[in-house]
């Protein structure tokens, strides 16, 4: 009887982890600008162009890409289970809309304010991620209140509130975009489309801690996630405190999504596609699907960002375009090959 066992867990996760390390290395070495690795390593702490390219402009991006790709994929997996909907993705919760709006407001009103944190090694952190995160928190609370009925977060209400909230936010963002000046509008647009551009290790570190912690917590809920996909009543009868689980997962994934969007804008498609791809490859057991999606998401976004930097050099394409452009056909190909595995 083929079931999930220790060996499969170690094998799959081991391979993915290895691929992740290789991707990180590869992405650090590739870019629109040629890099002299030896010189970069030699001059790690002195002002050398190669060292700065590698350690100050590329490495933070790569690390951020891994964290955000993994986080988005993990949240997408969890949300598809929670909402019992294969089309669910992190955007649907409405939290990303709130974060986007908060970020836009920050960009409009104080784009150049910086947190009074020492520069140098850790880099500068602007106010924008903070305003974005505040936006995320507010929208999370709002949607929570809208969807809470008798102590239960019904998936239907969650989905609906999220979609409506997002539409409303989109309208507000369009409005803001139309009243700012031309150059600000350009900046807003680029921010909205998502970008992994960062030089602040402090930000990267913070996001890493946040997302890894969140992911590990979600991983412990893997079994319950399996059960909850069977239906709310079936899950209850199999021993899951569904009401509590729904609330916890909503809060955890909202916080994670809010943090990610605050820093990088909304990078779509990863959270929708990666869980399905991994489901076709490793099955639907969330105890394996979650870590596999997390690692695969990191790999995917890492390479997507590399392509975003290289394709139209010197310009940088918004990474969300790459994820959709290359992710879509790959997913279709996989669907064609393994389609029968997906429930009708």
């Amino acid at each position, binding site marked *: 009887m083929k079931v999930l066992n220790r060996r499969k867990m170690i094998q799959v996760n081991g391979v993915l982890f290895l691929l992740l390390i290789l991707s990180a290395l590869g992405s650090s070495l590739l870019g629109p600008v040629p890099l002299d690795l030896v010189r970069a390593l030699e001059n790690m702490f002195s002002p050398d162009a190669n060292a700065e390219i590698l350690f100050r402009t590329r490495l933070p991006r790569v690390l951020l890409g891994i964290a955000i790709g993994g986080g988005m994929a993990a949240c997408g997996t969890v949300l598809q289970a929670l909402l019992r909907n294969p089309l669910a993705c992190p955007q649907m919760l409405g939290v990303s809309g709130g974060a986007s709006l908060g970020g836009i407001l920050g960009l409009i009103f104080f784009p150049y304010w910086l947190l009074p944190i020492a520069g140098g090694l850790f880099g500068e952190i602007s106010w924008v991620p903070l305003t974005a995160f505040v936006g995320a928190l507010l929208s999370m609370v709002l949607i929570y209140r809208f969807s809470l009925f008798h102590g239960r977060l019904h998936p239907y209400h969650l989905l609906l509130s999220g979609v409506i909230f997002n539409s409303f936010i989109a309208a507000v963002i369009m409005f803001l975009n139309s009243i700012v000046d031309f150059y600000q509008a350009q900046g807003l647009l680029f921010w909205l489309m998502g970008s992994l551009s960062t030089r602040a290790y402090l930000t990267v570190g913070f996001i890493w801690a946040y997302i890894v912690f969140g992911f590990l917590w979600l991983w412990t*809920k893997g079994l319950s996630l399996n059960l909850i*996909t069977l239906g709310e009543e079936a899950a209850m009868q199999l021993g899951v*405190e569904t009401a509590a689980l729904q609330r916890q997962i909503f809060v955890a994934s909202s916080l994670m999504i809010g943090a990610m969007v605050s820093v990088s804008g909304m990078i779509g498609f990863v959270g929708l596609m990666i869980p399905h791809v991994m489901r076709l490859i490793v099955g*639907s*057991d969330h105890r394996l699907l979650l870590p596999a999606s997390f690692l695969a998401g990191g790999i995917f976004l890492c390479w997507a960002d590399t392509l975003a930097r290289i394709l139209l050099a010197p310009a940088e394409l918004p990474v969300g375009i790459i994820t959709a452009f290359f992710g879509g056909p790959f997913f279709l190909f996989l669907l064609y090959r393994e389609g029968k*595995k997906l*429930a009708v």
Partner: protein
Amino acid sequence: MNPAIRIDDLSFAYKDKPVFDGISLSVDKGEMVGLIGPNGSGKTTLLKIFSAILTGSGEVRLNGRNIQTYGRRELSRLFAMVPQDNQILFPYTVAEIVLMGRASYHSPLALEGERDLKIARASMELTDSLSFSERYLHELSGGEKQRVIIARALAQEPEILLLDEPSAFLDLKHQVQIFELMRRLNRERGLTIVAALHDLNLAALFFPRLILLRAGKIYRDGSPKEVLTEKTIEEVYGISVRVEPDPSGEKPQLFICPSP
């Protein structure tokens, strides 16, 4: 002696639609009870109240303890429910589904162990579903799916088995098979069984005790002979039937007399 399930003065309403109005009943350990009644009489609702999915006013006791004092994990080791419909949107294999029944027996952080696999396998054998254990659930027919769900319920090693119209999608052979299985489990393992049934004849053949629900109240409670009379059927279902004993002489069978 503590009855397996006991409810006292239960009232329940969906929003403003009342379902039960102060009913009381008790089911002893090892009993095999069939809930019958027309659509909307509350059979499914009663099962859900038994399994703590719904809560009404009044008291529900399982094994002497108030049902509210139980945690879900504990409850799922105590009873298992086989619901009427199953909408599973994600691609799980039969083996994975049945193994989910073992969820409350091992730590959530651990994978299933040897014993879990053994019990799952045994459950599938009992329900004649081991042969398609590697197939995906959505590839199966309605009846095969039903047997898998029953196997999952059995894998929970429950003391009480609740079933909501278990024969709904099964063909005749499998209907009989399932009821014979239930009878066997009841006799050999002392499994308490409460099932909501729509087929009165099968109910009469296999269930020693029938509870007839009507308009939120218990209309009749007793052996099939006592409950299934022509007069009662006429009053509750509104159709006229002829009741005759079956070949063994013990159990009544209904013959429907449609209007000419």
